[in-house]
C-alpha cells in the first residue's frame, strides 16, 4: 500500500514485515526514529520480537551476533560514531558468517563532531566483510532491507548485510512509499532456518581460535562468497521484481548512459539530484549520464567496466575521504580500468557534500563543467577558501 512516510518509518515497517526475533540498538542521531518506531511496534504487540536496549553500540552489535548465532533473525541500526564503536563486532559478525541486517543512517565522523550526512562511516567499514548497499531514495532503502535478508540468509552466502541510507536526507525525508503486504513479504522471504547455530541437541563451537594452518582459507572463503553474492544479487532482485513489481539491478544502475560522453559515478541520495541535472542538461543537448553504485560490497567490477568502458569522461563523487590518499570510490573505479585497453579518457575525482553540506544542482553542474579531458584529482567542490585563511592567532585572545 502506498503511504506518505518518513524514511525511518518506512524502514521500520519493512523490518516489522521481515519478522526479526531479536532487535537491539543504541540511540544515535539520525538512526533514532527507526528504532523508536520498532520499539513502539513491539510494545504495541504488532511484532513478536525481543527488543533489547543496550548500553552501547558495541553491545547492540554483540546482542544481534549472539541472537543470530542462536538461529534467530536479528536486526540493528546505527550511524557514524556508533558504527565505529561497533567496528570490532562488525568485522566479527562477518567472519562468523552470521546474516545480521543493519541499517546505517550514513553520517560524518568526528572530529569535528557533526551529525549530518556524508559517507565516511560506512565507507570506513567497507573492508569488514559485510555486503554494503547504498540507497538512493526511501523506497529503495526500504526495499533493500528485504533484499538484504534474502541475500544474507541464502545458504550459499551467509553474510551480514548493511543497508546504508543517507542520514536525515533519507531517514528524515518524507516520500510516497509502497509498503508491501505481509503475504508478499512472506512469499519472498521465508522464515530463517540457520544452517548452523548454538543448539543443545547438536553442540558446536563457534568462533574458535584458528591458527596459520587454517586462517587464510577462512578469509579466502569469505572473499569468494562476495563473488558469489555478486552473481546472486541480480537473481534476487529479479525475484523481488516478480513479487513486488519494482525492478532493481542491485549492483549498479545506469541513467542516460547509452550515448553519454560525460558520466558521474555516485552513491546514495545525491543520485536523485544528479538525475534531475541530467534531465535539464539533456534538454540542452548535453550528453551526460549517471552510474549509480548500489552495491559497494561486493564491488561489481565487471558491471562497472561494461557500463563505463565506452564513456569518454568519467567523474567520481566521493562523500568520504581516505585521508592522505585517493578518495575511496574514485580509487576503486580507477582500479576497474587499470591495464584495460578500453577505458575512459579521463576519470576525475571530486569530493563533495561532507558533513551535511548541501549538494545542490549547481554543485553537480559544476562537476559536469569541470569534466574536461584533463583528470582532476580529489578536487573539492563548494569549498570555502575564506574559511581556510583563519589562523590560531586570530582565534586566541
Amino acid at each position, binding site marked *: 500500500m502506498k503511504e506518505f512516510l518518513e524514511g525511518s518509518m518506512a524502514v521500520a515497517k519493512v523490518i516489522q514485515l521481515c519478522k526479526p*526475533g*531479536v532487535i*537491539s540498538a543504541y540511540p544515535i542521531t539520525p538512526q533514532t526514529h527507526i528504532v523508536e518506531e520498532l520499539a513502539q511496534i513491539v510494545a504495541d504487540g504488532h511484532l*513478536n*520480537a*525481543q527488543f*533489547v*536496549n*543496550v*548500553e*552501547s553500540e*558495541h*553491545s547492540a552489535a*554483540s*546482542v*544481534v*551476533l*549472539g*541472537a*543470530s*548465532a*542462536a*538461529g*534467530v533473525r*536479528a536486526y540493528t541500526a546505527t550511524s557514524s560514531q556508533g558504527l565505529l564503536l561497533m567496528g*570490532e*563486532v562488525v568485522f*566479527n559478525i562477518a567472519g*562468523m558468517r552470521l546474516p545480521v541486517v543493519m541499517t546505517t543512517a550514513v553520517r560524518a565522523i568526528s572530529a569535528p563532531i557533526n551529525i549530518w550526512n556524508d559517507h565516511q562511516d560506512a565507507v570506513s567499514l567497507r573492508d569488514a566483510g559485510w555486503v554494503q548497499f547504498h540507497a538512493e531514495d526511501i523506497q529503495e532503502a526500504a526495499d533493500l532491507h528485504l533484499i538484504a535478508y534474502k541475500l544474507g540468509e541464502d545458504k550459499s552466502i551467509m553474510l551480514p548485510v548493511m543497508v546504508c541510507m543517507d542520514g536525515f536526507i533519507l531517514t528524515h525525508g518524507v516520500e510516497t512509499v509502497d509498503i508491501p503486504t505481509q503475504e508478499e513479504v512472506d512469499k519472498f522471504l521465508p522464515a530463517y532456518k540457520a544452517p548452523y*547455530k*548454538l*543448539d*543443545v541437541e547438536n*553442540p*558446536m*563451537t*563457534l*568462533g*574458535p*581460535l*584458528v*591458527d596459520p594452518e*587454517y586462517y587464510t582459507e577462512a578469509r579466502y572463503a569469505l572473499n569468494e562468497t562476495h563473488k558469489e553474492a555478486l552473481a546472486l544479487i541480480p537473481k534476487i532482485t529479479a525475484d523481488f521484481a516478480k513479487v513486488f513489481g519494482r525492478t532493481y539491478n542491485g549492483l549498479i544502475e545506469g541513467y542516460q548512459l547509452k550515448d553519454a560522453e560525460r558520466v558521474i559515478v555516485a552513491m546514495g541520495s545525491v543520485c536523485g539530484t544528479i538525475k534531475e541535472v541530467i534531465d535539464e542538461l539533456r534538454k540542452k543537448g548535453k550528453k551526460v549520464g549517471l552510474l549509480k553504485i548500489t552495491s559497494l560490497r561486493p564491488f561489481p567490477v565487471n558491471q562497472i567496466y561494461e557500463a563505463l568502458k565506452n564513456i569518454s569522461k568519467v567523474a567520481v563523487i566521493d562523500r568520504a575521504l581516505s585521508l592522505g590518499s585517493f578518495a575511496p570510490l574514485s580509487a576503486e573505479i580507477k582500479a576497474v580500468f587499470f591495464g584495460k585497453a578500453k577505458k575512459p579518457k579521463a576519470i576525475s575525482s571530486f569530493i563533495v557534500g561532507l558533513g551535511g553540506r548541501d549538494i545542490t544542482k549547481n554543485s553537480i553542474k559544476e562537476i559536469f563543467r569541470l569534466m574536461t579531458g584533463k583528470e582532476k584529482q580529489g578536487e573539492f567542490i563548494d569549498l570555502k577558501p575564506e574559511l581556510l585563511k583563519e589562523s590560531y592567532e586570530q582565534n586566541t585572545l
Partner: protein
Amino acid sequence: MSKTLFNSGHTACAGCGQSLAARLVIDAAGPNTIVANNTGCLEVFSTKYPETSWGVPFIHSLFENCAAVASGVESALKYLGKADSINVIAQAGDGGTADIGLQALSGMLERGHNILYVCYDNEAYMNTGIQRSGLTPFDSNTTTSPIGVKSTGNIRPKKPMPEIANAHGIPYVATASVAFPQDIQRKVKKALSIKGPKYMQIHVPCPLGWRHETNLTIAVAKLAVETGLYPLIEYENGILAAKRQITPKPVEEYLKTQGRFKHLLKNPDEIKKVQEIADNNIKKYGLKVSEATN
C-alpha cells in the same frame, strides 16, 4: 560417551586452575547449557580449530562482549520459547570482566537477563603474558606492575567486583575458589536455579603467572581463602547470605608460596599492608570462626 562436558586434550598449562574450574562449572550446569566466552586463556586453550573441548554449544566472539553475546543468545531463546529450559552462561577472565568487559557486564546485569556470568579470576592478563588487571592484588609483581627501586608491584587492591555486581540489585552473587570444588558446583547449581542475572567469581591460580609449583594450585588457592585474602561469600537479593568461615592464617603463609610476592618477604611494611587487606575482609564479612560461635 564422555563423562564430562569439558573434555581433555586441551592445551592448558600444567596446574592451570582455570581449566579445573571451567570443567567443574560446565559439569554442574549440565548439557542443556549454552556458553558465551570472552577471548582469553580459556577460549584459546580449549577451542583451537579443528578441535574443541566443549560438549555444549559454545560461542566465542571478542575480548569484552560475552555478556552482550549471551544477552543476544538469551533473547533469542526467549523468542523461541526455550529460555526456561536452557541455561546461558557467559564467562571470562578477570581482565575481560573487571576491565574491558565491565560495561557489557553491567548492561547485562541491569537488563535482567537470565544468565549466569562466571569470572575466572587468575588476577592478571595471563594470556598476553601476566600484565596487571583491575583484579590483580596489591603489591603483585606483574610485567606491567613490575618491582623496582620505586615500586613494590601493583599499586592498587583488587576492584571489588562482587560488590559492583551486587550493587546492580541482582538476585545472586558468589565468590568461589578452585580449592573447594564441591562448593563451586553447589553455587553453580544454586545460581542456575534462580531466574535473572547471576555473578560468580572463582579464584583460579595460574602457576605461570603467580610463579608457584604446578602441583600446588589447590594448596595456594586454599591459602588465599584461609588468610582472608579471598573471602568466599554469597549475596542473595543484595544481602550477605553465607560465607566460608576461617581461622585466619597470616598472609605471609600465602605470599611466600608465590614468586609474584617474593619481593615482599623482606619488606615487613608491605606485608603489613597486605595483612590489613586481609584483616579488613575478615572484619567486613565476619569470616573468623570464633565470631560465629560467640
